[in-house]
């Protein structure tokens, strides 16, 4: 990447085109990353399948057909049926909608709160930093699955409560990373310049610091979607997340456990769906990290 000459950086249009060039270079580097492109491809297919689920699912995911209960994979039901005769393939397709949505929402929620807290702590330092950092330390003293379970103890088991619980459990990592990056970015000249020009703290934080802080956060967020999907499935499997008859993958596995001896397909396929989804997101996230943060 060639740096634009100093005088031209004074022109905002030149800065703009430099930014575009950097972005294009990053995208190019990302696309050359083999496993990342595999991840993105799988992910795109999954998103299309999830969006198109109502159109392509052969059956209603909730419709019971007791005469067809526990039917093995066949031409009619490619992945078999569960104990109520519901089509597993249709349920997995609808389940993709739930899991992808929950994953993204958890990250948006926890990322926004975490970045805000981390930036405020890192920018102001002093008392407010002590308070935020201590709170983060305390939350980090709980393994995140345990913290999510504790939150569900308060809120009660349901999919939306699981979403909140996982989001709360993920806030500390965003706060910690953002605080660290903010502390180091704050020393840079561009922040001094913004301050000298009379920029208010919120303006400095959101206009100037945020774009420079967001890189590591984006990597964390992409891997966070994977963690969120896995944790949602775990909680639902335990009966603390999605409740029947919702076609959530983890909840499907929890009923599959009771029928494992007669009907392995109930347990095999939803688990594969989780693994493929999480794998795709992890490949994508690893690629993103290699591109955005070549040091690690």
């Amino acid at each position, binding site marked *: 990447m060639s740096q634009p000459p100093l005088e031209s950086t004074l022109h905002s249009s030149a800065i703009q085109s430099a930014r575009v060039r950097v972005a294009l270079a990053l995208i190019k580097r990302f696309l050359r990353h083999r496993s990342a492109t595999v991840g993105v491809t799988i992910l795109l297919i999954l998103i299309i399948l999830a969006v198109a689920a109502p159109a392509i699912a052969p059956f209603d995911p909730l419709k019971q057909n007791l005469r067809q209960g526990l039917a093995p994979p066949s031409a009619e039901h490619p992945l078999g049926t569960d104990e109520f005769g519901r089509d597993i393939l249709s349920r997995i397709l609808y389940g993709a909608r739930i899991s992808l949505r929950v994953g993204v929402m958890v990250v948006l929620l926890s990322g926004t709160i975490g970045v805000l807290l981390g930036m405020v702590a890192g920018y102001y330092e002093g008392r407010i930093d002590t308070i935020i950092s*201590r709170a983060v330390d*305390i939350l980090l003293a709980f393994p995140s699955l345990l913290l999510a379970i*504790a939150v569900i103890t308060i809120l009660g088991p349901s999919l939306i409560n699981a979403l909140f619980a996982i989001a709360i459990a993920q806030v500390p990592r965003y706060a910690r990373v953002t605080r660290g990056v903010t502390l180091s970015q704050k020393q840079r000249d561009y922040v001094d310049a913004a301050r000298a020009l009379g920029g208010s703290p919120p303006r400095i934080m959101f206009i100037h610091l945020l774009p420079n802080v967001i890189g590591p956060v984006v990597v964390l967020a992409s891997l966070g979607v994977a963690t969120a999907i896995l944790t949602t*499935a775990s909680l639902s*499997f335990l009966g603390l997340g999605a409740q029947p008859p919702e076609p959530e993958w983890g909840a499907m596995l929890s009923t599959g456990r009771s029928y494992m001896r007669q009907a392995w397909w109930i347990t095999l396929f939803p*688990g594969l769906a989780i*693994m493929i989804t999480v*794998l795709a997101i992890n490949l994508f996230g690893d690629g993103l990290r290699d591109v955005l943060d070549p040091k690690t």
Partner: protein
Amino acid sequence: MLKYGLKRLVSTIPVLLGVTVLVFSLMHLVPGDPVKAMFRMTGESVEIPPEVYESIQKEYGFDKPVPVQYLIYMSRLFRGDMGRSTIRNRPVSELIRQNWRFTAELAITAITFAIVLGVLLGVAAAVNRGGWWDTLSMMAATFGVSMPNFWFGLMAMLVFAVQLGWLPASGVGGFEFVILPALTLGISASAIIARLTRSSLLETLGEDYIRTARAKGIRERRVTLIHALRNSLIPVVTLVGLQFGSLLAGAVVSETVFARRGLGSLTLEAVTSKDFPLAQGLILIIALIYVLVNIVVDMLYATLDPRIQYE
């Protein structure tokens, strides 16, 4: 060394206090009356006789201001009193005493498995950088972190317990009972350890002192295993400490899959039946162990790398 540990312990006190505040507030964050909450069986309220209500309110000090209640909670805690489980009608401390060793057995077996497999795969990958071993073990690791561990457990149960009948599918007992649950619990930790071991070993292999060792004519195997591996395992030690915490929480899942006794399945039972004293006690204990394990790991870290000093 001991001084470092003590200092580290003292610095953890605010965090530990915060943990107790958080666990204490669990009871108060639940909407509704705490006494009624304590008596709620599997989510349904039961009629409580007024004299029982009052005696419980007095015993727990629910009629007093919240900060006073916290002090009462703490003074009970220091006497080892964590309240009574409402579903089991037994002291929480007794239930923890009766069940901890099953979880300890599970967690220790799991972390041992994770370390052995993770380090082996990581070293194999780093030594054969770019080769088949590298590709294979890193692919296995990527699958390992992407797999829901309870699903892996169910599949392992299907194959080794149901189909082949080699191992028991559930319960506690001899070592054969812990194998599948420990594999289930340790699989993702081993994948994470493998990745870090690989990258850390590759970094160390690029250091000057490794070149010196090679230049001295030391055999490659010795250079890798003696000179490089020891130093590259330092970050792995920290990771193991962190993983041990998630392992304790993961025990909830693994113990549920294999219907195994222990703190994990007890936690799930407490949460689903809204047994607040029991849930509080278990959450507190697991968090405490997690914090203490990390202090021990930090001490270990300081021993392995003398450059690390406290503050």
